[in-house]
């Protein structure tokens, strides 16, 4: 550095040290954010909007830059929370008696074991086995079991209604229905043991299904002919998504009764069952458009 520049820099420091700090330069005026910061949402495009009308899947949710829009993220988190809550819920022990069911329980002792040990959820414990043998009508055409499965929320919500509808539909077809049973900590295959014990021609279990996004209230129905411990899923027919936004209860009940009648007629179930002879008309109608349940309110429309 040149000598003169050193001298003048030293003089500057000497002068500056005795002076107050220079006033801060005024901040530039911050412009107001643009009125609309979202890009046009693809869901507003006709194709995506039409596609999204026919499913509750996450279609046409759009994006903001490289990420999801905030309302989509919040909706996703809310739906995931619904699913978590449904898995965590327990079926109260007194629910069966309060709704006119015979209460039974699998060999599972607590909720954690229920999630970790599917094999224990497929067999009745000793007390329940005695209950079934003692209280249930023997040799019905159809033994219907309502169970919690993976969503006690669905069971308490619409289990009773579905059972009533199924019982009515079966009775309408002239099928005798066994003593209503409600099972706690139950897996699908529990119907094999219960059906075997009561000697039913057809066992049918209605239980809460594995929750998906936003559907913690879905019921599934699994139907098997000639229930025996050791039946496999190849021997079963099932209907899933029995809830308000899926298959309505009345329609599901009619189909289940038709399935049971066909099994008794064909003396088989599962892959061997000829569904073409099910004898249900109007089955192949296009499904009505589904509407996604909004869990998150958007306070202001982007456009």
């Amino acid at each position, binding site marked *: 550095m*040149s000598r003169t520049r050193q*001298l*003048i*820099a030293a*003089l*500057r420091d000497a002068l500056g040290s005795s002076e107050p700090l*220079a006033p801060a330069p005024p901040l530039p005026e911050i412009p107001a954010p643009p009125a609309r910061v979202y890009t046009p949402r693809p869901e507003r495009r006709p194709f995506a909007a039409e596609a999204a009308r026919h499913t509750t899947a996450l279609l046409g949710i759009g994006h903001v830059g490289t990420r999801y829009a905030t309302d989509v993220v919040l909706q996703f988190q809310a739906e995931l929370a619904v699913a978590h809550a449904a898995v965590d819920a327990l079926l109260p022990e007194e629910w069966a008696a309060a709704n006119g069911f015979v209460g039974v329980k699998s060999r599972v002792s607590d909720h954690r074991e229920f999630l970790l040990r599917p094999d224990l959820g497929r067999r009745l414990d000793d007390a329940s086995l005695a209950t079934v043998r003692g209280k249930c009508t023997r040799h019905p055409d159809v033994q219907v079991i309502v169970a919690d499965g993976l969503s006690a929320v669905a069971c308490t919500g619409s289990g009773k209604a579905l059972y009533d509808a199924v019982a009515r539909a079966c009775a309408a077809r002239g099928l005798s229905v066994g003593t209503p049973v409600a099972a706690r900590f139950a897996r699908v295959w529990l119907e094999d043991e219960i059906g075997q014990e009561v000697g039913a021609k057809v066992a049918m279990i209605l239980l809460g299904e594995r929750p998906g996004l936003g559907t913690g209230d879905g019921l599934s129905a699994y139907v098997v002919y000639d229930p025996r411990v050791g039946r496999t899923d190849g021997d079963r027919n099932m209907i899933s998504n029995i809830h308000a936004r899926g298959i309505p209860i009345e329609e599901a009940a009619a189909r289940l009764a038709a399935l049971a009648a066909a099994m008794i007629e064909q003396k088989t179930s599962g892959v061997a069952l000829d569904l073409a002879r099910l004898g249900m008309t109007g089955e192949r109608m296009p499904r009505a458009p589904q509407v996604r349940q909004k869990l998150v309110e958007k306070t202001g429309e982007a456009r």
Partner: protein
Amino acid sequence: MILEPIVPTVLSVRRLPHADPALVRAYGGDPARHTALGLVTVDQDDPTYVALDEATKHAPVDVIFAHSFYAGAAHASGRLSGEILGVFGAADPESIDQALDAFVRCLAHDACFYDADGKRTVTVFPHVIASLGEYLSKEAGLAPGEPMAYLVAPPIEATIGLDAALKAAEVRAVRVMTPPTETNFACAWLTGTLDECEAAAVAYAAAVVDVAASPRAR
């Protein structure tokens, strides 16, 4: 911030390897010794005088011409005119090249005006030459190698600054150029020992800053 360096801009640097003798003579050179010329224009005149002098210490060249332009760089006649034209003369182009390199280096790193009021509306040139070269020593009537304080500021600031510089150090005035000059600044050349020249330059700069900050304080 005050006293920030205002680095000069070298607006043009050209070389005439074999200049016409009539041109050399017209610009004050000796055609017998000055066959090659180097020409520069800069937007600050006093740093250029210092840099021209500095170049004579690095190469066998003579400063044959150096004149400030009237009213300074803010009123230049053209984009490349700046405030001064300087011309080196030498016997060979290589010497001109060496001189021009030293000239540009000096302007980039050493000689420059300083901002005296933080708004660049008052500037000061309190330069200390530790060792005079051929050119300014002849202009000042001193021996080459002597130290000199080269002090420039606008008229009122320069006058008060010169008084402060003369009182602050054991220096004597070699030459005082009162306003108006070509660029309407005022100039003083002081000499003494190097320490005294430095003290004079600092006192001069401090006085200029003071006048710029409070021009009406009696």
